[in-house]
């Protein structure tokens, strides 16, 4: 059996609001799978259904070949997770929190082992209220790891962290995956997904709008380069330009997906110069552009 998680026609409604709108997903063992999307896309609701902390309105979920309704105790032993927001008791020490959570599992890692894994050894006697944001987040991940899970869920593990803390968490996740374990993470950082995940699903309004490896998704744009131009006067009609795969109007200007920058750039300048170019940026295409291309919106709006 190689499937870590499977869901079919997953729906979750809160009154009139549909948070998850018919999701189908299959995640293999050993994958690091990313759920990407803006705030309110239904990522957390979806993950909490996977974690057995929320019930779907309809649809089926199978985790490690088991169902929450029938096998909750067994499943709890085998998964680990960090919620989007957890406040550990302020006046417990780091190692006390870990020992407490470790005691809930029949088998797992030692507290010392996990402390080393998340580089919190020297903070083990510190009250959690005195930890920095990055250290708290690492503690949350450490708590997810004490049971030595086969499948790890991380809900926005790096939101609000400084670059160094983010990199530390990335290393922890990469290390976990190296042991052929499965990770499902949600994020709205595209660089995080590109770096960590072998496959991602782009979620918007409770639906999957794109699925594949980060590379496949970026290639689906048709070109590896992006040119963003802002003009003084509005652009009305653009002729097809050589070297340009597609173009899309965005606020105050245009966004071009470009196959060959050296061919396309002179053409773009020629056409848009009469309208007054205020700003021009070129960069490699990212998953962010995939999202913009699919929805016409930016991720963090």
């Amino acid at each position, binding site marked *: 059996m190689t499937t870590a998680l499977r869901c079919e026609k997953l729906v979750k409604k809160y009154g009139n609001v549909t948070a998850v709108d018919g999701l189908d997903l299959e995640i293999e063992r050993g994958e690091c799978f990313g759920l990407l999307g803006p705030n309110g896309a239904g990522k957390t609701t979806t993950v909490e259904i996977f*974690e*057995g*902390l*929320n019930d779907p309105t309809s649809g089926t979920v199978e985790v490690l070949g088991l169902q929450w309704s029938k096998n909750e*105790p067994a499943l*709890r*032993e085998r998964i680990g*997770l960090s*919620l989007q*927001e*957890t*406040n*550990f*008791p302020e*006046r*417990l020490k780091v*190692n*006390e929190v*870990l*020992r*407490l*959570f*470790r*005691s*809930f*599992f*029949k088998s*797992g890692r*030692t*507290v*010392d082992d996990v402390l080393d894994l998340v580089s919190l050894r020297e903070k*083990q006697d510190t*009250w959690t209220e005195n930890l920095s944001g990055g250290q708290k987040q690492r503690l949350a991940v450490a*708590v997810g790891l004490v*049971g030595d899970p086969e499948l790890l869920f991380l809900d926005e593990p790096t939101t609000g962290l400084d670059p160094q803390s983010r990199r530390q968490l990335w290393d922890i996740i990469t290390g976990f995956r190296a042991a052929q374990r499965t990770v499902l993470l949600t994020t709205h950082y595209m660089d995080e997904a590109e770096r960590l995940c072998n496959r991602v699903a782009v979620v918007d309004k409770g639906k999957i709008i794109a699925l594949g490896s980060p590379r496949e998704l970026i290639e689906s744009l048709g070109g590896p380069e992006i040119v963003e131009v802002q003009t003084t006067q509005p652009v009305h009609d653009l002729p097809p330009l050589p070297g340009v795969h597609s173009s899309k109007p965005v606020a105050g200007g245009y966004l071009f997906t470009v196959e060959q920058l050296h061919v396309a750039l002179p053409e773009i300048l020629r056409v848009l110069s009469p309208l007054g170019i205020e700003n021009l940026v070129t960069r490699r295409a990212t998953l962010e552009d995939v999202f913009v291309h699919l929805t016409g919106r930016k991720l963090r709006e």
Partner: protein
Amino acid sequence: MSSLNAHPFVELTLSRMRLFFREPGAVFWTFGFPLILTVALGIAFRNRPPGPSAIAVVDESLRTALSNNPAIALRVLDEPLARLALRTAKVDLVVLPGPPIAYLYDSTRPESRLARALAELALHPSGPPATVDKPVTEPGSRYIDFLIPGLIGVNLMTAGMWGIGYVLVEIRVKKLLKRMIATPMSRAQFLLSFVVMRSFFLLIELPVLLGFAYFAFHVSVAGSLALFTAVALLGCLTFAGLGLLMASRAQNQHTVNGLINLAQFPMFVASGVFFSNSRFPEVVQPWLRLLPLTALNDALRAILIDGAGPRAIAAPVGILAGYALLSFAVALRIFRWR
């Protein structure tokens, strides 16, 4: 040491203890405050003889007869001044010369009635037969004897309901509860750790309070100390259950605050903590006896003051046990875990 995997129930209980003792405020309200309250009330209501009765006369004619009694503080005033002194409670009684001799006093004031009796005695010394006064200061009949069990009861109520109800909701609001039930943790053990913590603290509090009451006020338990402790433990369990019930659905601290205050207020007033609930009208008394704190106070007092045995306190103990069972049963059924 940290590589050893401890039992989850032990870890849960240890965590509760650590969190409690690392919160100085909680330690004060549980252990310090009841002691301070006992001292303050013990001093305020200490037994002392009433002061002499203030009586005014308007001329010298009655002076000699009245000034013989040391329990009378006599003043000689003009009649208007004497009436003013009476109105403003500077004196308890004004005696006007007769014939016939007239007493001016407010008959609803106990002090005035006492002063009138003293004056009557002084003016007609041959009246009543000779008697001997025997002041009553036996342990068991003083206010402090009444107060101590009430304070223990009210302490059990507040510590149980706040210590469990409020703390549980706090854990829920912080999403810590959700995080914990996402592990294989036993929910029963989680809740039980709170009850065990409360019982443990009770076993510290009780000797401290009783010991203090004994040494400071010579209050001692007339009945069995074991029975007293057992009833206190049952009360602790009852209010743990009620705290759990208050916390079972509340989604934020404001809600549980309100619920706990709502539940506690009638008991503060009517469960005979500071004064006997016999002061309330007859018709409501059976209902007051059904309040859990009334039952607890009645049982504790019966043991401490009257030396009651198990049979004598069966009714209040039954009421307490009923509340404990019912509140735990309902709370566990409706508890919001997610």
